[in-house]
């Protein structure tokens, strides 16, 4: 058994929220540099150079990489042997509230009916998962909605098969055009049910960028889709070239014999994701 204080969790989440918005992780920086080096279109290459410079300025001066510091998406993986004193959910929301206030991050959460801004960037969207063990892992993905808005989900008939899946994903990215700030990261959830597919797609974005799915069959699909997107896509910012997407992550789950759900969650190059363990 391990006991964690809710105040300690709130403090950790506060730090997570602040650093996630200003300091890009090495995985995304490496991908941006590689994309820049491989890019042929001069305008796209220059835009990638700007993105690298932007990341440096953000980190050095602790300015958000992008003004859209997102709605918080939190993945909580809690060991069965962990006891939290106080409310875990409230501790997380409190950490985000404090991080966004003290980090000068943009408050972008509003009521969907009145559109009134909550002014605090909470509530965040929190997903809980219970696993064996005595650790608490908190993954934070502040999600900008220029990219989120370009996402989609379809319940394909099984007869559509893998060609149907690939076609849907590629078309989704093409339709998004320059809206989601390409180069994008494409999260795909395949299988499960309606909501499970969406969650798989979102969660796949937490994977270290470009790591293949451990299942070789799925990894091959990821590669095929990535190649097609970069052949057929609009390129960086919609300005041409070969870097519409930096990676495709696909996660799968068994599904019903009548079903083939496919969810596509589009993430932008401002791919802010961080994880801590307590």
């Amino acid at each position, binding site marked *: 058994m391990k006991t964690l204080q809710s105040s300690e969790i709130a403090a950790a989440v506060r730090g997570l929220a602040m650093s996630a918005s200003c300091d890009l992780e090495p995985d995304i920086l490496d991908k941006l540099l590689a994309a820049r080096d491989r890019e042929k279109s001069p305008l796209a290459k220059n835009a990638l150079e*700007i993105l*690298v410079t932007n990341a440096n300025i953000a980190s050095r001066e602790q300015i*958000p990489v992008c003004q859209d510091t997102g709605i918080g998406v939190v993945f909580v993986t809690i060991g069965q042997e962990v006891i939290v004193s106080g409310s875990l959910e409230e501790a997380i929301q409190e950490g985000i509230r404090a991080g966004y206030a003290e980090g*000068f991050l943009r408050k972008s959460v509003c009521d969907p009916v009145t559109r009134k801004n909550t002014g605090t960037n909470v509530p965040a969207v929190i997903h809980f998962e219970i696993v064996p063990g005595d650790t608490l892992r908190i993954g934070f993905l502040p999600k900008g909605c220029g990219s989120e808005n370009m996402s989609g989900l379809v319940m394909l008939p099984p007869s559509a098969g893998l060609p149907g899946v690939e076609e849907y994903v590629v078309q989704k990215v093409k339709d998004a055009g*320059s*809206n989601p700030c390409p180069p994008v990261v494409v999260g795909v959830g395949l299988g499960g049910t309606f909501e499970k597919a969406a969650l798989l797609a979102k969660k796949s974005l937490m994977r270290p960028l470009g790591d293949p799915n451990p299942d070789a069959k799925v990894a091959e699909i990821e590669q095929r889709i990535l190649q097609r997107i970069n052949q057929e896509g609009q390129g960086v910012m919609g300005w041409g070239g070969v870097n519409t997407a930096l990676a495709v992550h696909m996660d799968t789950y068994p599904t019903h014999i009548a079903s083939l759900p496919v969810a596509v969650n589009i993430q932008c190059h401002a791919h802010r994701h961080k994880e801590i363990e307590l």
Partner: protein
Amino acid sequence: MQRPKIDKGFFENLRPISIPFAENVLQTLKAGDLVSLSGSLYTGRDQTHRRLVALLDEGRKLPIDLQGQLLYYVGPSPAKEGQVIGAAGPTTSYRMDAYTPRLLELGLKGTLGKGSRSMPVREAMKKHGAVYFATVGGAGALLSKSIIKSELLAFEDAGPEALFRFEVLNFPAVVINDLEGNDYYEMVTAERLGVKYEKSI
């Protein structure tokens, strides 16, 4: 990792343009032209637009005169002590499409954001002689360096969706839609497909 200097890395061969726009400047801009904007502009995004158009619907006066102006679609992050503004890159423009024709009728001459515009907006821009620019999405930290003054003008309660006036210096942008109805995104697509570019309006 490599750390390029801040002052380089913008687009090359930028053409300097003053804002608000002078007479006869807009017709010289062509889709795909790279410009650097200097002068003053207004900002606005979803709620700002909703409120401006609501004022028009009620027959009331707007807090700003849009004649000849450039409207930048941005919701900046808050400024820290000593900063002019926080991160301030473009937001996606199509969400403003429902409102844009109304503002073009008032003499708005340019909009700045990211992503493509609807056909009705493109037609309205052509009719009213307005240009649409895009800049680099997700480069809000760097773009904030081109904003040298910021003044809150209206809708403070809307938080990041308030209406600001920015003074900008050498703000980089690409012309997407010019006065002749060309669209740079469509030109890029035509080039990739190896087909001749045909204007769609």
